[in-house]
Structures are given as C-alpha cells and as structure tokens.
C-alpha cells in the first residue's frame, strides 16, 4: 500500500519535472528541474531495490553531469536568451507528432503484453539473495562484465581528453 503511494507520487513528480524541463524558457530553471527529475529517478531505483544504482545516479548524474550543465549555462547564457524563431516552426509540429506516435506504440506494446502474461512470472518478488545489492553488482561487474567495464573506462578517458581540448581557450 505504502509502496504504491510512494510510486505514484514519484511518478507524477518525474513526469512533472520532465515536462517543466522541456517547457521553461529560463535555461537555469530548466537545469534545476532536471536535477529534481534525476533525484526522483534515483528514488525510483531505491524502490526497485537497486540502491547502488540510485547512489551512482545521484553521484554521477545529479552531482556531476548536471553541475557541468550548470557551469556551461552560466558561462554562456548570461548575455541574452537565444533568438526565438518567429512562429511555430514546422519541425515543432513534426516533433509532437513523432512523440505521439512513440507514446502510442509503447502503450500498445504494454497493453498487449499485459493482457497475455508472458512466460516469465509477472511480478515474482526478488529471491532474497544473501549479498546486498552492492556486492552483487560489484561481483557481476568484475566477473561477467569485465571487458565492457574496461572499455567504459577507456571511453571516459577519451571523453576527458576531448573535452579539455575542445574547451581550451586558444583552441
């Protein structure tokens, strides 16, 4: 009972902040709503018994990436708002159409799969494995997914070097 209350509040918060991110004019407010959105998503992960992922989400996403966005928005945005093109551009209408089609398609899949229960048990509670979520993720990360882990670290290194070179003053 309590879990569904928490879920519904979080869901509405996420959707609400998502819409606000997309619609507000002032970019800094946009970034703030994005942070709030990410924090609510982190709580959703806690509901899904994925604490490690929730903490990583807060640490990396809300604590790192969005701070980066805030820095860039402040350095760049303060002079003036980008010139808003006159009238609804055709692309806006296409955007809404595409989003509507996307939503319709996803809900169709959901409705279809909800009516015929798939082979897998719908909502079997997770087997209470001995180790905590963190240890389980850690073990997986270093056993089955070692190669993607190393590749991800290489990717991050490349991204760091790229970002520094791009943003250098005399570049």
């Amino acid at each position, binding site marked *: 009972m309590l879990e569904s209350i928490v879920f519904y509040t979080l869901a509405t918060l996420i959707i609400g902040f998502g819409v606000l991110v997309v619609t507000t004019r002032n970019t800094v407010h946009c970034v703030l709503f994005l942070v709030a959105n990410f924090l609510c998503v982190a709580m959703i992960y806690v509901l899904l018994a994925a604490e490690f992922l929730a903490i990583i989400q807060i640490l990396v996403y809300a604590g790192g990436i969005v701070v980066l966005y805030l820095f860039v928005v402040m*350095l760049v945005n*303060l*002079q003036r708002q980008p010139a808003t093109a006159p009238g609804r551009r055709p692309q806006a209408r296409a955007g809404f159409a595409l989003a509507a089609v996307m939503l319709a398609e996803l809900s169709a899949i959901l409705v279809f799969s909800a009516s015929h229960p798939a082979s897998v048990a719908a909502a079997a509670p997770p087997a209470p494995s001995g180790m905590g979520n963190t240890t389980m993720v850690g073990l997986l990360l270093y056993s089955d997914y070692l190669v993607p882990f190393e590749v991800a670290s290489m990717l991050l290194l490349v991204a760091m070097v790229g970002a520094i070179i791009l943003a250098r*003053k005399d570049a």
Partner: protein
Amino acid sequence: MSTFDTTELTLNMGPQHPSTHGVLRVVLRLDGERVVGCDVVIGYLHRGIEKLCEHRDWQQIVLITDRMDYVAAASNNLGYVETVEKLMSLEVPRRARYIRVILAELQRIASHCLWLGTHAMDMGAMTVFLYCFRERELVLDLFEEYCGARLTYNSMRIGGLPLDIPSGWDKKVRAFCDILESKVPEYEELLTHNRIWRDRTKGIGVIGGADAVALGLTGPVLRGSGVPRDVRKDEPYAAYSDFEFDVPVGTAGDTYDRYLVRIEEFHQSVRIIRQALDGLPEGPIVAKVPRLIKPPAGETYHAIESPKGELGYFIVSDGKSNAPYRFRVRPPSFCNLQALPRLVQGHLMSDVVALIGSIDIVLGEVDR
C-alpha cells in the same frame, strides 16, 4: 575569434577597501584573473600640508608633521626638527640626540608591528595581527608616558626636546625591549617557515636592485632587493654614528625578502635602543634657542631613515618672516607607491593585496 566574456575587465579597488591601508584607489585592468594593467589614483587624503606650513610659525610646524605619516609621527618630527637645526646650524646637546634616537627606533618598531599585522591579516593569518598590536600597545604606552599622546606625539622641538624623560622611563623601555625580543620569534614561528605564507610571498612582486634605485625606492623595499642603502649608516644623523648596528639586506627582492628585512629590523632597533640607553649622557636636553625662531635666509635638504624609507625635508627660509618660505617633503611611501604598477604586472588579483602590504604605504604621507 571573440574570446569568452573574459575580455579585459577593469576592476576598481576602491578608496574604501579593507586592504588598501587607507584611501588608496587602484584601477586594475584584468584579463581573466591575471593583472594586465594597473594605475594608482591618490589624493583622497590631500590636506595641503606643504602650503599650510608656509603660514605657520616654525615651532608650530612640528605639530603638522605629526599628521603626515600618522603611523610614525616621531620620525616625521625628527626629520623636520633636524632640517631646521641644519638650516640654523644649531648644535643639539648629546642627551637630546640620544633620546631622539630612542624615540625614532621605538617608532620604527611600532610602525613595523602595524605593517606586519595588516600584511598578514590581508593574507588570512588573523592571529599575527593581534600579536603585533599587543606589542604596539606597549610602545604607545611608552610614548604616552613621555609626551602624553599615543598617535600625534609632538615629541620634539627645534634645538632639542620639550621635556626630559620621566624617571623610571628608561627601565620601562629596557623591559619592553626584552619583551619584544621574546615575541618576534613568535611572529616568525607563525609565518616565516609556513608553507602557505612562503607560497603566497616567495617570487611575488620581484624587483631588481637597479630598477629599485631607478624608481627611487628607499627603505626596506629597496633593501629587500639587495641594495644596502640606509640613511642612518650612509649619512648618520642625531646620534646614530655612536651606535653600531647592521643593515639587513634581502637577495631576491620579492615580498618574502622584504618581509625578512623588516623582521630583522625589529632586532636591530632593539639593539640600538639598548646601546642608547646604556650610553645615555647627562646634561641639558635643549640648546639655547631664541623664543622667536628666525633661521637665516637659505635653503637646505635633510633626510632621515623613517620606518618606510628615506624621509627628506627641503626647507627654504627668507630670513625675515617667522614662517618658512617653502616647505617641501620627500615622503618614502609616495616614492615606493610608484613601484606598484610595475610590481603587480602579470600577477593574479589576490597578489595585489599582498603587494600593497609589502611596500608598506601610509596614505597620509602619500597625499600630504
């Protein structure tokens, strides 16, 4: 290719700013964090002292000289009084000259205490400020006992001193010297070997010996760059020729060396005071001087070593009126301040604060 919004930014370190030691205005042109250009605006404390003195009787001018470098009033008095005596070729009794040396050296200690306190406070070391002012209070008490004032002493007269030292005063001065000897290591303990202090001062505001002389710098700022120029040694006045003391000289000419030079001057001043107290002769404290002083027509320039540097007086007397025809002062702070735009070149914004403290200026003397 337009760079970011860090195009050249002019920043106004306004007249009322905590670390400009009075009403100095520095207009900084910054490129991001680095100082590109800096021009100093002075004159906020201009009271027209030189013009004022042309309408004052000779003895009254001593009062006005107190208010020039209000941190070292005794040195100002000494400089003026000696110039007039040189003009009148007056012979000052030995006892008066000895007491004048003691007063000047006490004043140097007090001025250096204030410099060290504010200099360290600007860079975050709050405690040194309180320690220095504790010692400065002792010096002010000594002056108060001698001449009744704590800031504008009016402690000297043309021809000697207004009053003899009160009984027991020399014992108090000796006690003060012992206290100071034990306290200066306390300042050094906090700062000299402190990594953060060294990082903030080593290599900041470097100026070579030749450039310093070319700019007319004097005092600890010049000695920090390795030039052993000290008026007390080169042209001894009052009774400095009777005492032996050495002149601390820096090597690199950066803020750290200027700091070391002034710290060493504490010890030298104490040494001088002790010798002066030991050899204090008996005798009159003022020469035979007519009630109404009328120095013969003529002009003269005489310089002394004030805590900030070479303080010179150029006085022209027309022999008839009882006021100087022309009264000109060569203040050390004014000349040392010239170096600021050169020293600040290429440093960061927070170094400007350290540099202003390092050249130790007092705006009363700069603006006159």
